[in-house]
Structure formats: structure tokens, C-alpha cells
């Protein structure tokens, strides 16, 4: 999946998928709102371009792009975001914490930064040559538990690629005021090869990730890749209503000048793009129709999936359980 057109298609697909999702948020179909990755698509696409179906991804709360790039069925992902039983997690994961074992995408924990050690634990079980990629943001590197994960991954020389999507902010907090020292310095402190790479050009991302993935496959242990990138839509769709003044329009515009979709589009002939774009629109119509048309969970199933076996939890009132 390293052909320029394929890369373009996936970026374009994620972009349009989330634009449609934002419409569904506004329409009230996605109750949680979403954390759009629009502007960051090249990172997930460029990294996952180096992965096989066998490799494992542990995503973050900003994960739609990772899921689609790893090969999840878009209709089932959208259904999940809409809280429908047809979703990848039967409507129990939602937009923030998706998992889809069919595509080897494991549970994205809501506890920012804690995926790093979970990823190490998954990597501990990997067959030789199999790789785990853990995506997280710049805010996650200030969570001690993430650094504990780095220590374990390095000590055990585990096949993990840590991908930090540095989009400049943790919610409203600028990375410079949150991170003393540097992000890559945190990797190096644990003996992990670490580098900072442009996250807007998918082919640059892909090349940097290729080396890290190869190191992991060859038993060379973990790598930390910090990709500089940017989210156009803010932290969460609530920013569509509540305008927060933590960044300037000017800053947003400057980043849009290095839009990952435009950068890759320039490498694909116009007619090819037109065809790709048209097919994506057609597919997304079906994706949205499937999601919105799917049934919502039945309240009587509220206690399902809590436990594998054993007695069910007692209900909140005596008598009826």
C-alpha cells in the first residue's frame, strides 16, 4: 500500500469520512462528538503503509484515521461512532475507544498515555517479525505511565513503534508549556532511538516509519517517532460551538498551506484523482446510510459483555436483575 495513488486515496478517504462524521455530529447521530484527525491524516496513513494485516495497532482518542489506514471496515467504524449495534464494538466503544480485532486494532484506552505499556505487553506476545504500533499525542508524553512503558519496552527490547503525533496542543495546552526538555529526549533517556519527522508529507512519514518498523521486525527493539502535525478542527467537535482562543486563525491557515491531502494530491494526475474522489463519495454515501440505518442497542442488554462468564452484576434495584 505504498503506491502514491493508494496513499492519496486513503488520506482523501479519511478526510471525507471525518467531514461526513462531523455532519453526523451536528445532526445528533454521533452523541459523543468526535476528535477529528483532519490535518493529521498523513501520519496514520504513512505509518500503517508499512504494516501487514498481522501487525497490531493501538490507537488513541483521535483514532479514526488509524483505524481506516489499518484496514477497518469504514461502515462498521461509522456505525460504532453512531453507537449502533452493527459497529465494530457493537456500539460499546464509540468514537473515542475503538477496537477491531478483525483488523488487529486493539482497545484504545481513554487514559491518555497508558497505551504505551499496554502496547509493550501486546508486543511481548508477538510472533517474530510481528510489530505493534502505538499512536499517542504530545500530551501523552507528560504522563508518567507512558514513560514507564518506554522503560519496559526498551528493557525487554520489544517490537513496538511509538508514534507521537505532535499536533502542538493537548486540548488547549501548547506543547511548549507542557513538555520541559523535548519529546525525543524522553525516548533517548530510555535508550530508544528517537527522531522528529515532518508529519504532513505522507511519503516522508512512510520512509521514517519503514526504518522503525524494520528495526522492530528484526528484533532491534522499540523506536520513538515524533511527527510534527496539526489538527484543523480543534480538540473535539465541541469547539465548533465553543470558540476557544488558544490558537490564532493565522496559525491554522499557515498549517493548511502544508495540507497532507494537497501534498499527496500533487503527486497524482488530476483525472486519476477525480475518479478516486468520485468512488470515495459513492462509498461514503453507503457507509453513512448503513450506520444511520442500523439499530441502536437494546436497554435490556445494558449489562451484556461486562463479564466473560459467572453471575451477572446485580441490578440497581432489588428483585429485578
Amino acid at each position, binding site marked *: 500500500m505504498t503506491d502514491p495513488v493508494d496513499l492519496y486515496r486513503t488520506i482523501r478517504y479519511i478526510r471525507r469520512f471525518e467531514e461526513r462524521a462531523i455532519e453526523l455530529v451536528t445532526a445528533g447521530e*454521533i*452523541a*459523543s462528538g468526535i476528535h477529528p484527525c483532519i490535518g493529521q491524516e498523513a501520519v496514520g496513513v504513512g505509518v500503517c503503509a508499512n504494516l501487514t494485516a498481522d501487525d497490531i495497532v493501538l490507537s488513541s482518542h483521535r483514532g479514526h484515521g488509524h483505524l481506516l489506514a489499518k484496514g477497518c471496515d469504514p461502515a462498521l467504524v461509522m456505525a460504532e461512532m453512531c*453507537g449502533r449495534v452493527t459497529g465494530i464494538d457493537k*456500539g*460499546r*466503544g*464509540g*468514537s*473515542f*475507544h475503538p477496537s477491531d480485532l478483525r483488523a488487529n486494532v486493539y482497545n484504545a*484506552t*481513554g*487514559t*491518555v*498515555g497508558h497505551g504505551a505499556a499496554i502496547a509493550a505487553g501486546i508486543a511481548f506476545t508477538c510472533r517474530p517479525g510481528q510489530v505493534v504500533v502505538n499512536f499517542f499525542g504530545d*500530551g*501523552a508524553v*507528560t*504522563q*508518567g505511565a507512558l514513560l514507564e512503558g518506554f522503560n519496559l519496552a526498551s528493557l525487554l527490547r520489544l517490537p513496538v513503534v511509538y508514534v507521537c503525533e505532535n499536533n502542538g496542543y*493537548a*486540548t*488547549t*495546552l501548547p506543547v511548549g*508549556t*507542557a*513538555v520541559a526538555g523535548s519529546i525525543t529526549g524522553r525516548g533517548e533517556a530510555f535508550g530508544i532511538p528517537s527522531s522528529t519527522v515532518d508529519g504532513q508529507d505522507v511519503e516522508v512519514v512512510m520512509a521514517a516509519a519503514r526504518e522503525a518498523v524494520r528495526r522492530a521486525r528484526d528484533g532491534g527493539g522499540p523506536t520513538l517517532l515524533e511527527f510534527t502535525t496539526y489538527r484543523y478542527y480543534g480538540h473535539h467537535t465541541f469547539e465548533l460551538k465553543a470558540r*476557544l*482562543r*488558544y490558537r490564532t486563525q493565522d496559525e491554522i491557515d499557515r498549517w493548511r498551506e502544508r495540507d497532507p491531502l494537497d501534498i499527496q494530491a500533487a503527486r497524482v494526475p488530476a483525472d486519476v484523482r477525480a475518479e478516486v474522489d468520485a468512488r470515495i463519495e459513492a462509498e461514503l454515501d453507503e457507509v453513512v446510510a448503513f450506520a444511520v440505518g442500523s439499530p*441502536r*442497542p*437494546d*436497554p*435490556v*442488554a*445494558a*449489562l451484556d459483555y*461486562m463479564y466473560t462468564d459467572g453471575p451477572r*452484576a*446485580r*441490578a*440497581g*434495584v*432489588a428483585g429485578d436483575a
Partner: protein
Amino acid sequence: MPKLSYLKALHRALGDEMDRDPDVFVLGEDMKFALTNVTAGFLDRFGPSRVLEMPLTEQGFTNFATGAAMAGKRPVVEFQIPFLLLLVFEQITNQANKFRLMSGGQLSVPATYLCPAAGWRAAWGAQHSDQPYSLFAHMGVKTVLPATPTDAYGLLVSAIRDDDPVVFFGPIATMGVREDVDYATLGPVPLGVGRVHRPGDDVTVVAVGHLVHDALAVADELAGEASVEVFDPRSVYPFDWAGLAASLEKTGRLVVIDDSNRSCGLGGEILATAAEEMRLVAPPKRVTRPDGAMVGASPELDVALQPTRQQLAEAVRRVLKS
């Protein structure tokens, strides 16, 4: 009289205390832009040395607050999501809350942990909608859960002035609650003292947090059938056992509505203490979340996992019959 919302009451209480006592300061995530609105305008009003923007470092800044408190400050630590209080559970319960005893009373830790967002967040996922107040009560950490703007104001003031760690839970569902208040009468509400919202003779309904408002609605609804007393302890720990006993002396019948998980929750503690030490003429009942409830996965399921007015009305009717 002006209407004061619960959220505005928190904003006012914290601001008043910061005006009154220069040792009070607030720290947390997204402080600069006051994401929860509790600290709206505080950065300009009090400056960056008293409104500390913190990175995504909950254990670190909770311990930081402990240190500052031991050294004489009165930090108010804001947590935007209830599970963050689980993440710092050891730092609060096993460290901050024990240092006074461990020092033989040499020092105290006057820190306040403010969660203005406790409870259900529709569809945010099962990790974001807990009500962990019973856990802090079990560990002996002073814990309050006010239901009204006046009580929110008064208990936040008292929590900040208290010389021990205090966890303040403000339910999301109460943030919009508004009340007519005469600002002049706003003042501290003591910890461990409950409040009878509505006197009654036939049955005592103990309700906490946002469920107080549901209990009052149910009491109205049942007015024709029975005289329901609605008791709001306001503090989870210490609990107003004397207030509860006084109410049960009168009614002898007890129903608790509590948004925490059933097993080893506040509702259970109230039933247990009443059964062991107080006057009961009929078996008590509680309406709670299920055991270990995982709320937040999806709106339809979430509603089925939280206590309802119908469940309360039904429980009251049953207790009155038995």
C-alpha cells in the same frame, strides 16, 4: 432575587476564597482557558502564580498540591473527568490523607480536589462516567456531594477552609441547576451536616447529588399517597448519622437513591448503619447503579444503568406497604 447556577456557585465560591485568602490557589488542566468554566476569568483576576496551568500529569500535580499544602498553601486541584480521581487515588487516599497522622499532627494537608463533572457523559465511553465518591469515603477522605447552588457554594468554601484533604464532587447533571439566592446570605456549609429538603412523616428518602432533585419530584408525585421526607446528607464522609437517625425516629422507613455502584457504595452504607443502629419498622431499600456499572457506552444503555424516578417511586411504595 438573582438566579445562581450550580456552576456559577462554584466559580463564585472559589473566587471569593481566593480573594479572602492569598494562600488559596487553583491548579489543573486547561486552566488558562477555563475549560470547565469554574475558573473563568481567574487568570486575569488572580494571575499565573495562583492559577496554575498543569500538563497532562495528574499524579504529578496531585502530589505537587500535597507538597504545597504541607508547606502552608491551600491548593484547589481541578479534575475534568471523574476517572482522573481514580488515577490519583493512591496519591489522595494513601498519601495526602495519611500524612497528618504519620507526622503525629505536625503538619496537615489542606488540599481540595474539585471534580465539577461527576457522573454520566453520554457516549464518551465506559471510562468517563463514574461516580467514585464511595471509594473516598471508604478510605476516610472527607468527601462532599452538594445538590444545590447554595450548598455547592457553602461546601466548596468549607472544603477549601478545611485543614484536611477534601474531595468535592459536583455532578454534571447539577451544573445547570439554578436557584434564587440572596448573595448576602451565601456562606459556608459545614461538612457532615445534612439537610431536610422536604419534611415528611411516613418515609425517609435519602438522596444525594443530582438525585436530590429527582427525589423531590417523586415526593411531589406521591404527595397524595404518602408524606415523604427528603434528606440530603450533602457530605458523603463524614456522614450526618445524627440527622438520619432523627428522620428515622419519625418515619421508621428508609429508601436511599444513590448514583454510585451498588456493591460497597454509599447507599449500602446508609442501609447498613440504619439497620444496625437506628429505628426501622420495615426493611429499607436502595436504588443505585448496578454492581460495578459501566456507564457511558451508549445513551440507550446508559439510561438503563442509572437510578430513575420510577424506580424510586416503586421502592417507596413497596417500603410503605411492608
